[in-house]
């Protein structure tokens, strides 16, 4: 049986940001890439979506307080 790890209820939605999106994000947040929280390149989800070191991953979490919240991680 084949399944995606991303379908597990504990795993929120992960998306890779395009280069333009990433640049815009860093401009809005006013930080350098390295200041973002990290995520390992050999993380099972990073492997599944094919994220490479240097990519920024957008994570849409279901939050207990805000309903939905967006988080970013830099793949290292």
């Amino acid at each position, binding site marked *: *049986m084949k399944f995606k*790890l991303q*379908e597990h209820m*504990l795993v*929120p939605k992960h998306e890779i940001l395009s280069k333009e999106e990433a640049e815009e994000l860093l401009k809005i947040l006013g930080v350098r890439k390295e200041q973002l929280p*990290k995520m*390992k390149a050999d993380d099972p989800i990073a492997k599944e979506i094919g994220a490479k070191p240097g990519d920024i991953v957008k994570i849409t979490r279901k939050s*207990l307080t805000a*309903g939905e919240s967006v988080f970013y991680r830099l793949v290292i």
Partner: protein
Amino acid sequence: MKKVDYDSIINQYPFPPSVKEEIKAELEKNNVNKTNAKKIVEKCYQAYLANLMEPGEAAGIVAAQSIGEPGTQMTMRTFHYAGVAEINVTLGLPRLIEILDVRKNPSTPMMTIRLLPEYAQDREKAREVANRIEATYVRDVADIEVDIRRLTIIIRPDTRVLERKGLSAEDLKNKISKVLKTEVEESEDGSFVAQIAEPSYKTLMTAFEKLKDTVIMGIKEIKRVIIRKEDDEYVLYTEGSNLKKIMKVKGVDFTRTTTNNIYEIYEVLGIEAARNAIIKEALDTLEEQGLEVDPRHIMLVADVMTADGELRQIGRHGVAGEKQSILARAAFEMTVNNLLDAAVKGEVDYLKGITENIIVGQPIKLGTGDVELVLKLGGRK
């Protein structure tokens, strides 16, 4: 009365989704007209801004106090049975410490396995999956004896148990010969006789011990499986945990199967799932003790623990132990070791954190202390 489009009013403000929904529900309940709705939403936005955390606020200290205080009321040592099922799980303070320390092997690993629809409705089918998961040893399905005179091992299969586990005598025979690496002969009364290769008493006994602990079916780590009916489906609870193997078992709904071993979740499902698991486990532990802690504090802790892409414990080997400042580390734990190591390496303390500035007696960069005023010369234009 004409229906007012509340969404378009609310969406003009950057509320989080849950707040948006709450306002909308309240407006709809009272059937507010458009001009009033605008005023209400504006007021809500002001209240929202007033309740936001201020920049420079010591969020971590507030979180530490908010978890620490209820923690003092937790039972020091509790072993409890989870619900009706007689599975022993660590709860209370020991469990909370386990979560924050990111133990690789928690003292009582446990899994909650949900089944695919076609298996979840039928007790027999659920039993079938449970059999596939639960570790069955050779000693569970057969009597094992050693014949010292002939230097053989005699295995008498219990046909009733074998049948209940859905195994055949043939399976057992093959497994035995594979483990002992010898031929297994079947005698008239249905028992198996295994002749060991090297005829010595010592090898006979090691082979005997090995055979006793051989798993012929199921997953080694899963010591016990309990089937329970929850709402309208059967759920399996296990003692012991192995997420990686369980997700490949037929009949298991992997997407809804979890374990209380956070490190295992991190390895199989990644850092974000681990963060969710930390929040869930910590909140459940606190709630079980009748303590209410705002999830925001736990979320902050979970964020710090997962910020580096790997699980870091809160403590001397993790978050606190990896601080940049030598003085902050020395003030926390293992003072002499930290100072000595720093001296040997020739480290420099830049006095950028809180603890080190308190130690040297300087104002700290926190709250209002974090703000510096700059005077722009030249006056107003």
